[in-house]
């Protein structure tokens, strides 16, 4: 009996360790493929012909159509953050530090990460699904047969668009979050908007804004790259399109935290 249990346990342990090994292998293989995909992007982005019209269309699609979502998210973020922090700061009699604390937290960390995660869901999954459905309905093949480089037309334009648009969306989202915070301070603490924003600009330095902006450029690049990679190499019909969209969001979310960690680490060394 005991022997059977030990045998069973060791068998299931071997099985699960095999599965973990296989998944780890395929995960690293995918990271390798994604790196090659990024390499191809850098080769193609600087070589003509340049698809400026499609790039502008993508910038409009990704930027303009995300404004409302990013705006609402930023505003609520500012409101909630200020409401939650007020009681704790009041306990120490440090309400006057509210503007500095909120602005530093939002500009340096919370704003870029939250807005990038929102965009991963909105833009990254959209790119994955769009390119995936183009792949399974042979639209990408049709593009190639008609003499247009689909990588340049579809992938390069989307990655450049997300890289350009995400920092702008994050700056806008940060500003709206600070507006939400100022509103709460104005309603609950009798702090005027002018005073609040004076304190914000006193607290913020270029060494806070520049690393956050550079980080958001990398966030945008990651969203475009992973979304395009997942969609461009989508297979298995409509099921594959769903998988491409879903796994794009999962990979982007993980990658955003990795980039964030690296950015904080590097910022800590230089600033």
């Amino acid at each position: 009996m005991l022997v059977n249990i030990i045998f069973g346990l060791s068998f299931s342990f071997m099985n699960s360790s095999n599965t973990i090994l296989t998944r780890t292998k395929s995960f690293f293989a995918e990271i390798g493929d994604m790196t090659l995909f990024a390499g191809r992007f850098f080769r193609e982005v600087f070589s003509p012909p340049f698809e400026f019209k499609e790039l502008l269309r993508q910038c409009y699609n990704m930027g303009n159509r995300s404004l409302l979502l990013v705006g609402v998210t930023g505003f609520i973020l500012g409101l909630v953050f200020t409401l939650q922090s007020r009681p704790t700061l009041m306990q120490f009699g440090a309400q006057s530090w509210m503007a500095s604390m909120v602005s530093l937290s939002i500009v340096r960390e919370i704003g870029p990460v939250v807005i990038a995660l929102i965009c991963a869901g909105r833009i990254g999954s959209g790119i994955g699904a769009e390119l995936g459905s183009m792949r399974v309905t042979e639209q990408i093949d049709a593009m190639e047969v008609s003499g247009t480089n689909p990588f340049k037309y579809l992938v390069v334009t989307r990655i450049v668009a997300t890289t350009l648009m995400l920092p702008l969306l994050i700056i806008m989202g940060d500003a709206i979050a600070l507006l939400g915070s100022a509103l709460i301070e104005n309603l609950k603490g009798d702090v005027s908007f002018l005073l609040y924003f004076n304190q914000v600009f006193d607290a913020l330095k270029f060494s806070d804004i520049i690393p956050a902006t550079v980080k958001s450029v990398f966030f945008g690049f990651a969203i475009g790259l992973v979304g395009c990679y997942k969609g461009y190499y989508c297979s298995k019909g409509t099921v594959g399109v769903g998988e491409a969209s879903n796994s794009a969001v999962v990979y982007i979310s993980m990658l955003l935290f990795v980039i964030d960690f690296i950015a904080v680490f590097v910022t800590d060394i230089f600033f």
Partner: protein
Amino acid sequence: MNSEKNKPVLELKNLHKSFGDNHVLKGFNLKLFKGENLVVMGKSGSGKSVMVKCLVGLIQPDSGSITIKDEDIIKIGHKELDILRTEIGFLFQGSALYDSMTVRENLEFPLRRHKDKIENFQGTEILVKEALENVGLADAIDLMPAELSGGMQRRVALARALILKPKIIMYDEPTTGLDPITAKEIILLMRNIQKKYNTSSLIITHDVDCARVISNRMILLVDGINYAEGTFEELSNSKDPQVQAFFKN
């Protein structure tokens, strides 16, 4: 003069293609002559679509040669291949219309890389309208693909394949997914286009009716090789059970 006439516009020699352990093409050969309608028939999954995708450079074959208008497309570079592709029209199995673009934009898309062709043919607008009139859909110019029926989508895809006035047209399952009446309309349209522009057509299908109406010559693709070759009458009267299986109702 006679030897020039007998020279194929497209020739496939000993084509091999495998996907892992699955050997799809095992030495397939094909010759397409000027003005000819050649039908390649085979069961689903027999490698017909793989073969035709090798022909336009979408899939790289493992070995063999593909010569189109005296150029081996496996050996030439991307630029040369793109130029050669202007001589080839391709109708995809599922139409493959760009669903984010209108019918007009779909038809203009192949022209954007081949501006020299536009100069030769007096501008984009005329070319787009002419191509749509050829398929009887001039009124659909500003519609989106989603607003079109399956048959109309196939017609627009055909118009897009024709817009650069190609010398060779390849049809990948042109009647799949269509009702018999619409399928017949598409087949007649293909025949009319072939007569009007004297194009050479390679038609990949498993539709016997399509083969009967349109083919000058047929090749049966079985187990990755050309199993049988001849006219529709010759093959349909064959005593070979493998050949007969294609023509039985």
